[in-house]
């Protein structure tokens, strides 16, 4: 390669990196604007804001209470012992809090936007329609509960034998948090895949309800299910991959057969989702959709 060609390639690479950085910055600025608007809107209706916090607190209390009643009768739940089960519960509450805070409000409105033709306003804007749809609404009320979920997870880990005491265990906990984030992203992709048919069908409320119902499957340790059921909900409808595998990988010492599906399914489902999103936005024909 002659020096001129090498120099041209180097400049082109720098240019591409520069554009990518500017794009990320651009979207970060938009997201901060969404955040400000969401805070202003959320705090405007104070009673609703307070009730939402209260509602999520009850949701957490009920889930913790449910597992405590189960643990009152058994010391082993799907190959997890009492201590591990408590961390498992805290893990899915953390993911639920994350999802409810960052994505749930936006996704709730999505089918209605399409049905009523209001998705036009998303498509005409000079930014990614996917980004606008997924990140538009930040749930301020749920954010406070997400902090409570973080506190529950911290408490459960720090009072268990999994409490980090050396560099290796700190790495393990960091990896666990990373896997919880990956699990949340799989949950987001799965939920969206249940909603994307809204581009082609009038009513997807049943599919939305179905996606909520099957989330419950992931909120139990994967060991309680027979092999075939576990396979279906790990690879085909990956609710176990999203909810159970991150915690089980951490609690059972990162076995390959647990965390490999997690990363593989995440990549696959995001690929499928983006494909259908592209097809859906092409098929969209305003209110007549």
């Amino acid at each position, binding site marked *: 390669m002659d020096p001129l060609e090498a120099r041209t390639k180097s400049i082109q690479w720098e240019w591409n990196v520069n554009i990518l950085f500017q794009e990320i910055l651009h979207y970060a600025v938009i997201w901060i604007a969404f955040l400000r608007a969401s805070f202003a809107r959320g705090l405007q209706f104070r009673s609703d804001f307070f009730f939402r916090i209260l509602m999520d607190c009850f949701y957490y209390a*009920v889930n913790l209470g*449910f597992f405590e*009643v*189960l643990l009152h009768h058994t010391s082993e739940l799907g190959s997890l012992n009492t201590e591990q089960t408590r961390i498992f519960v805290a893990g899915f509450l953390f993911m639920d809090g994350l999802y409810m805070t960052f994505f749930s409000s936006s996704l709730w409105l999505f089918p209605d936007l399409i049905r009523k033709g209001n998705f036009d306003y998303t498509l005409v804007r000079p930014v990614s329609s996917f980004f606008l749809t997924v990140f538009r609404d930040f749930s301020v009320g749920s954010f406070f509960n997400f902090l409570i979920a973080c506190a529950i997870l911290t408490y459960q880990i720090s009072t268990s034998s999994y409490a980090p005491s050396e560099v290796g265990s700190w790495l393990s906990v960091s990896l666990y948090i990373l896997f919880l984030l990956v699990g949340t992203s799989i949950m987001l992709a799965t939920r969206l895949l249940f909603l994307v048919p809204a581009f082609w069908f009038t009513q997807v*409320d*049943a*599919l939305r309800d179905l996606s909520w*119902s099957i989330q419950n499957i992931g909120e139990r340790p994967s060991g309680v299910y027979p092999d075939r*059921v576990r396979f279906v909900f790990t690879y085909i409808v990956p609710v176990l991959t999203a909810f159970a595998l991150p915690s089980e990988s951490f609690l059972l010492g990162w076995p390959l057969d647990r965390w490999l599906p997690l990363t593989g399914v995440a990549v696959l489902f995001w690929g499928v989702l983006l494909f259908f999103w592209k097809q859906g936005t092409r098929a969209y024909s305003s209110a007549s959709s």
Partner: protein
Amino acid sequence: MSLPRQLFRIELERALTYRLDFIMRILAKALSVSLISWFLWKSIFAANQTQEIGGITLEQMGVYYLFLPLTLMLVMNLDYDSLSTDIYDGSLSKYLLYPRSYLWMTFVRKIASSWISIAPYLVVWFGFVLLLPHSALAQTPIEVLFFYLIWSLIAFPCFFLLSSILDLLAFWFEQTWSLRSILRFTALFLGGGYVPTELFPEGLRYWVELLPAHSMLGFQTLVLAKGTLPAAETLYHQLSLLMAWSLVSGGVVWILWRRGLKVFSGSGM
């Protein structure tokens, strides 16, 4: 045609407009609750190598969780939130001009919506009975099944009144759906919607059984699961508890309704 029959017909038409959506929603909820709970309890029974937990066998647990979604649909149909919506968007104004009580109409519509929703469940259960003719489910005595349905009908007004208290707060607050969700979570947990209340720790169980949720949901479902009618003493106790809570809730609903109408602007929030 009488008003209740007319309202039943409207609700049926509403449900049948989006048939597939309606059936899928109900079956998805029912099957997810029943199957998840079945696998969970099967693994617990296997891990403990026991025949019964808290006096309930695995088979009875299966019947309990199979009928639980039906109980929830019959007693606490929370999908229907017309009361607070009507207050919020001002639709209440037109109903106030009708020569019928708005609360009575809402009650009939809700009960109609609940009982119409049981049709898809019945198909599933008939399937179960045909597939498993020797199971506890198939051999449930008819009088127990009858008791279960009558009790669910009696429990419905109690839950309707409790949820109406929260709905009527829409006269003063922008949103009340989160409060209804709180009621749903709490009633589900305390009423045996997650775990039969018989399995709660002894000290907690005493207090939980004084609350209305157990009488509304778990009581008749467990009677059905066990396949035997309760003792007369238990029956009177549960019935008086249900009546007492209904009366108290009814009183609160009446007060909120009267006061709410005074602050209702006619055009919603």
